[in-house]
């Protein structure tokens, strides 16, 4: 009998992507030097190696971008025939498909996510999102019965680091389809695919100023939010920042959509298809290193199958391959940043101190880079921080329940309401649970599925507004009486 079958390294080639040494800001259809004169280094979190120098946009830079967006809005974009707008978006979708491997490699390099996910999930979904909304551009009147939809103007969009290109697509595609122009800020740590996307816009010959990309940290985001020339803000990120944005915009009449944090319950009943449920649990929390706002971070297992489920879960965790994001066999990649790694480590420490039982599979981690071993906590009480706070890392808290009512009560016992999972073979129970879970997305006998046609967004402090589907257009149109 063999003693090991170590898969040989199967790295995706890096040379498909060319990263510039430094980037400017993409304003008015070209890269310009930041007026701030400031730059910072963006790195590969798996190797802690610098990848490029990107601009830190300040107030003057943001102002320039907003002006460019305003000019494009009033100059051409809002007057363009909707069917022509559609064709630009179709072009973008196609070019993204053609250059998908390049984007996948860059996404994994800059963000730390496994190439398997950037290749099979992030990039194809981003292209699909443009394709989906392209078709809406000249059909908006069918989406809003008895209303005349018109664009709002300049949309300021601020996106997170967990799905950089995909979140860009979620933001830009509906905004453009509805006839708005955009100033988008990618996350501080993951600007590179957004900057590469500018080259897609060039190839698509999108008119200058329709999309402007400004890089920088939270200060840049705050400048976008506060800019009087921005008509609409769309933000995806933490609940804390979302609340601050809502406060800033109070009374301005600016439109706002927020997609914020979550602490989703993933509920497994005793009649569930157990092996598939375990896959769903794994996919729910270890997908993208748990850097997922809708991650199934609270697992509720019915007591009668608790031991069997935990045994299967731990066994499955031992087969997770943690390491080089560019290796095609990697299941769990690098943590996005040092800061995030420290946050995860501190919350895990709190779990241990509060008395939860920790399990981490044996795991060889690379020496350099930011890594965290997939972790599960059992014996978790609802009151522990690890059961209450969003960890945004590969850390699962397991709780138990006895009856459906108890599961619902505990699942809903959180200020968040983004997503939830239910595993049971009983159809009527699925529908009853789906109805009573206070969450914007309910995955029944599956988890972490996304699609451009499927609206996504939260209840309660997980935000408001929807992205995806017909409902995703609402954030980007003003509705006049027909």
């Amino acid at each position, binding site marked *: 009998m063999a003693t090991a079958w170590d898969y040989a390294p199967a790295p995706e080639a890096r040379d498909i992507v060319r990263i510039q040494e430094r980037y400017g800001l993409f304003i008015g259809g070209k890269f310009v030097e930041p007026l701030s004169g400031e730059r910072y280094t963006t790195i590969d979190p798996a190797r802690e190696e610098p990848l490029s120098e990107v601009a830190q946009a300040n107030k003057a830079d943001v102002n320039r971008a907003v002006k460019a967006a305003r000019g494009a809005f009033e100059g051409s974009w809002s007057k363009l025939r909707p069917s022509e707008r559609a064709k630009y978006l179709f072009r973008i979708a196609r070019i993204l498909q053609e250059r998908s491997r390049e984007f996948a490699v860059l996404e994994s390099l800059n963000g730390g996510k496994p190439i398997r996910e950037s290749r099979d999930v992030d990039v194809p979904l981003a292209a699909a999102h443009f394709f989906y909304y392209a078709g809406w551009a000249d059909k908006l009147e069918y989406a809003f019965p008895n209303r005349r939809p018109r664009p709002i103007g300049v949309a300021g969009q601020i996106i997170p680091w967990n799905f950089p290109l995909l979140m860009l697509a979620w933001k830009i595609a509906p905004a453009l389809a509805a006839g708005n122009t955009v100033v988008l800020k990618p996350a501080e740590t993951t600007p590179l695919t957004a900057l590469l996307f500018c080259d897609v816009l060039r190839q698509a010959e999108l008119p200058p100023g329709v999309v402007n990309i400004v890089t920088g940290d939270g200060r840049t985001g705050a400048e976008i939010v506060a800019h009087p020339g921005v008509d609409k803000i769309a933000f995806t990120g933490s609940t804390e920042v979302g*609340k601050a944005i*809502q406060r800033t915009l109070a009374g301005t*009449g600016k439109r706002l959509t927020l997609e914020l944090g979550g602490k989703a319950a993933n509920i497994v009943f005793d009649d569930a298809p157990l092996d598939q449920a375990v896959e769903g649990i794994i996919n729910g929390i270890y997908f993208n290193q748990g850097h997922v706002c809708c991650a199934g971070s609270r697992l509720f297992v019915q007591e009668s199958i608790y031991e069997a489920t935990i045994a299967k879960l731990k066994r499955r965790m031992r087969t997770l391959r943690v390491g080089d994001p560019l290796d095609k066999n990697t299941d769990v990649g690098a943590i996005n940043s040092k800061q995030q790694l420290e946050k995860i480590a501190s919350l895990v420490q709190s779990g241990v101190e509060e008395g939860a039982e920790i399990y981490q599979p044996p795991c060889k981690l690379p020496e350099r880079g930011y890594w965290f071993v997939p972790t599960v906590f059992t014996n978790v009480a609802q009151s522990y921080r690890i059961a209450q706070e969003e960890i945004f890392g590969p850390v699962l808290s397991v709780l138990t329940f006895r009856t459906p009512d108890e599961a619902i009560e505990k699942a809903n016992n959180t200020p968040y309401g983004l997503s939830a999972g239910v595993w049971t073979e009983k159809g009527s129970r699925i529908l009853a649970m789906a109805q009573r879970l206070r969450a914007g997305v309910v995955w029944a006998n*599956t988890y972490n599925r996304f699609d451009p046609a499927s*609206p996504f967004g939260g209840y309660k402090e997980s935000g408001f507004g929807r992205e995806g589907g017909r409902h995703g257009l609402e954030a980007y149109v003003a509705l006049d009486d027909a």
Partner: protein
Amino acid sequence: MKRLPVQKTYKLFIGGAFPRSESGRTLVAEGANVARASRKDLRDAVRIARQAGVGWAKATAYNRGQVLYRIAEMMETRRAELASVASSKAEVDRAIDRVVWYAGWADKIAQVVGTANPVAGPYFNFTVPEPTGVVGILAPEPPLLGLVSRLAPVIVGGNTAVVIASEAHPLVAIELAECLATADVPPGVVNILTGLRKELAPWLASHMDVSALDLTGGDGDAAELERLGAENVKRVVRGKADGQSPYDITAFLELKTVWHPIGM
């Protein structure tokens, strides 16, 4: 001899009952003593509205539609009383017709707003509207039509409401409450407070168990109220004081998307 008429005491409407303010205070408005609700009255109203929401959200759309229609019936029979404290008879008639209009939406809104989504995979995926929870309403003028225009879309979608009535013209709000109380509206689904806006509105806006705010009736304080509302990410709505639209219903609805695999 001339008969001395019995005067009405204008009290609050909370949980289906007509209590005085726990503070014992009143104020004079439109020549009558009107209860001056305190922040504790408001707190009680929110608590009761939250509890009432469980059953109201679960009620069938058909049932909710009938309850709204019953409100219109009760308003029709009290048309004269309502008119005596509203701005005009026309206002009352339009308010009644508006309630009937919304009654008919109860079992249609989900069909107009909901979707079956063609996702690229073996999944059945659908989106349905659900109530957001407790909605705080600052009723705009005119006092009856404004209130009804904002309240009806809120409750027809399954939400419950805590309304702060017009400060200058509160009487018709309580007159309406008497229609609600006899219209099979489950206790607590609608709660109406009279009193001083600036005493009550900040507590409503900052209440962590209020899910959404309708600031159509807000004035100079709207920005501050919205700021307070951010603490629990309230949905803030500014609509038309005199308008009717299914979009006014959806403004207070959450959208839930459910996925299920399709397999043998």
